[in-house]
């Protein structure tokens, strides 16, 4: 099994979710993250002291998939998250030794 991880713009989350559903992926795990990269942050001033906030809000999306589905899922996520502007983020794939569904204890693809 593979784990496809995407770090994307928060406002693209809904589209990614819908796109995955459309692609028949019934689950994912989402968490908040902050990104640092080419995308500029903003400036804040408190009583005359100015800071550059170079971390920008991102959302992490993790999808567990069967090996053969990985490329498609990567594709789906990339397409759905893309705005074409700096800061769109990254998507990467990792190989897993095993996946278990806690509720049933099922292993492997059956756990997805």
């Amino acid at each position, binding site marked *: 099994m593979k784990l496809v991880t995407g770090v994307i713009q928060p*406002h693209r989350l*809904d589209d990614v979710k819908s796109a995955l559903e459309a692609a028949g992926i019934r689950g994912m795990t989402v968490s908040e993250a*902050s990104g640092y990269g080419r995308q500029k*942050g*903003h*400036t*804040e*001033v*408190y009583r*005359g*002291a*100015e*800071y*550059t*906030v*170079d*971390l*920008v*809000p991102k959302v992490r999306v993790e999808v567990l998939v069967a090996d053969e589905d990985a490329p498609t899922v990567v594709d789906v996520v990339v397409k759905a998250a893309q705005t074409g502007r700096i800061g769109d983020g990254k998507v990467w794939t990792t190989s897993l030794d095993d996946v278990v569904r806690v509720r049933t204890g099922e292993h492997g693809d059956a756990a997805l």
Partner: protein
Amino acid sequence: MEFELDSGNTAWMIMASSLVLLMTPGLAFFYGGMVRGKSVLNMMMMSFSAIGVAGLIWVLYGYSMTFGTDIGGIIGNPADYFGLAIPDSESLMAAVGVPATVAAGFQATFAIITVALISGAIADRAKFGTWLVFAAIWVTIVYIPMAHMVWGGGLLGADGITSALSVPIDFAGGTVVHINAGAAGLALALLLGRRKGFGREPIRPHNLPFVMLGAALLWFGWFGFNAGSEFAADGTAGRAWINTLVATGVAMLAWLATEKFRDGHATSLGAASGVVAGLVAITPAAAAVDTYGSIAIGAVAGVLCALAVGLKYRFGYDDSLDVVGVHLVGGLVGTVLIGFFATDNAEQFGVWYPEGALNGLFYGGGFTQLLTQIIVAVVAVVFSFVVTYLIGLALKVTMGWRVSEDVEVGGIDSAVHGETAYESIQQGSVIKEIRA
């Protein structure tokens, strides 16, 4: 006439003024909690800045332009009391022994809150600079004339356009404050257009306890608003106080019942909204109706406003925080229902009865008072909407009203005010520059 100080009435009016002033920060929380975390500061700034702008205008020419010698039934003479140079003998509240400074202060707080109310219609997307300019113009050519017309002996007063019928009743500001702000909010909502995702994406309140806090401070302050409008500490002020308690509580329950019945959930946002709807509706009627009248007004306002907040989706105008649904509708409910419930039973209920006014339809007064109330309400809506629309239009083509879509999506707080409301992991790493 010699001025004779009444320390009791004065004590009450100083407190009432303080209470009404507190309503504007209260509104900042009521509104601020309702927007998303990325624009709460901007929302609160629109209210706070209104205190500065409207307050300054008021003490310079505002008071005088409202309560100075009548000019054409529209405004008062700005020169009469410019800079609040008012001998106590000419105090607006001289008859009850309240000094000029206190009277002027009380009235200032009304101008302030009315402007601030409008900001709810343009949440998340308005340029702060344009807002400041709008506030100044609006107070001058919409609020002041309206206040003069209703309370300064103008066209909507006792000897105004309805003089052939009856004396209009607006005890504490149903027309001047709520219908006025509501109609103005509608005009701006139409002018500014919708926020990105309006009606499609969920734009939920970021902090409901803040909304509750705002509602609580508004309610508390409103006792000064309504009971203070008696200008004295007496039984009529007490009646206004009681009605401000009961109509509001009933409106809250009515809103919750409507939600429970329609949505299956009685929400805290609904409770807070019902509170404000009830406060708005009872405002013009505060001392003009008895216990039963206030219960009825509260119930009607709670149900109607709960339904009215949906209209913006149906008609597609983004009145973001429902200034129309709550203040315009609530203000109309109160102003019109006076025509049904006005009573002169002062003996038993301590109600107030303006010279020449008539009982409401349900209290044996026939249709005349009702008709009077409707006329005044309609005129107020039209005047406020039209003039506000013109001001807004002028600002749209000159300064512009909307921030860029990027700013709207990224958050108006950080882009416009250079701040974010809450600390988070996304924080400046090192101080870039200290301007000292």
